[in-house]
């Protein structure tokens, strides 16, 4: 014969099992969705400097500065299994030192319910665009891409690449003036 505590325990365990099933249904209803979408970006001002990188070796390295425009609408990415988006803007390029360089220049967190229609004009980067040598000056093919992590209630943490990218080149001369 069950006591009060045993009955309570049985109900609680059963409710938790049901909750696990509901969470799985939520996950299963969104796992095959396509979260890619179009994002338009382009650079406005691009300069490159040759300055000492005191955070590393104190040698003079290339430091890129750029401002960018970014337009995208991510509203439709939010559903009941998306808590927030973590956007990040990456620059990819090839140098003599490295076959592939990837530098995150800017990022943004969009919580659910916040405005997800992005329209940035002439925005500054958040993080320094350091090269580990002199690979930026005169580099003809730097590609900007926008990506995002989807932070879900339950399930995978996918890394999505936006459709659309922008390629630009750095000037062949260092800028020495203050900006």
């Amino acid at each position, binding site marked *: *014969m*069950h*006591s*009060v505590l045993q*009955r*309570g325990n*049985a*109900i*609680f365990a*059963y*409710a938790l099992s*049901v*909750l696990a*099933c*509901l*969470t799985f*249904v*939520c996950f299963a*209803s969104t796992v095959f969705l396509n979260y890619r979408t179009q994002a338009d970006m382009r650079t406005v001002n691009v300069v490159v400097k040759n300055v000492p990188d005191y955070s590393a070796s104190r040698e003079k390295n290339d430091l890129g500065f750029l401002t960018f425009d970014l337009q995208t609408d991510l509203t439709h990415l*939010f*559903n*009941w*299994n998306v808590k927030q988006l973590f956007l990040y803007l990456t620059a990819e390029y090839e140098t003599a030192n490295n076959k592939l360089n990837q530098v995150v220049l800017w990022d943004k967190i969009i919580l659910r319910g916040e405005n997800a229609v992005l329209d940035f004009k002439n925005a500054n980067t958040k993080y320094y665009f350091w090269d580990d040598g002199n690979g930026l000056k005169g580099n003809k093919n730097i590609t900007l891409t926008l990506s995002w992590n989807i932070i879900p*209630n339950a399930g995978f943490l996918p890394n999505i690449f936006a459709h659309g990218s922008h390629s630009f080149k750095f000037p062949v001369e260092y800028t020495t003036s203050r900006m």
Partner: protein
Amino acid sequence: MDFFKSIPTHMDFEGQARAEYLSRVIILLFAAVGLVWGYIIQQFSQTVYILGAGFALAALLTIPPWPMYRRKPLNWQKVKSTGESNSTESNKKAKRK
């Protein structure tokens, strides 16, 4: 302490079965409604809250030993007295039953 011991917590066997069945029906019903509603408004938190309400209702209805779970008590045999003097008498009573 005597006060707590005086609170009845007992269900009979059939009441126990009814309580368990009822609790599962209630929780599953709220889970189904919560799932549909949460999907419609695309808010999984609402699904969880509705399931929580179902849990609370099931707990209220099936944890306390309400009278509906005590309708078919077991008919226990009378306690046999083990005293030598009236052992024959009690045996006779048992046979008579």
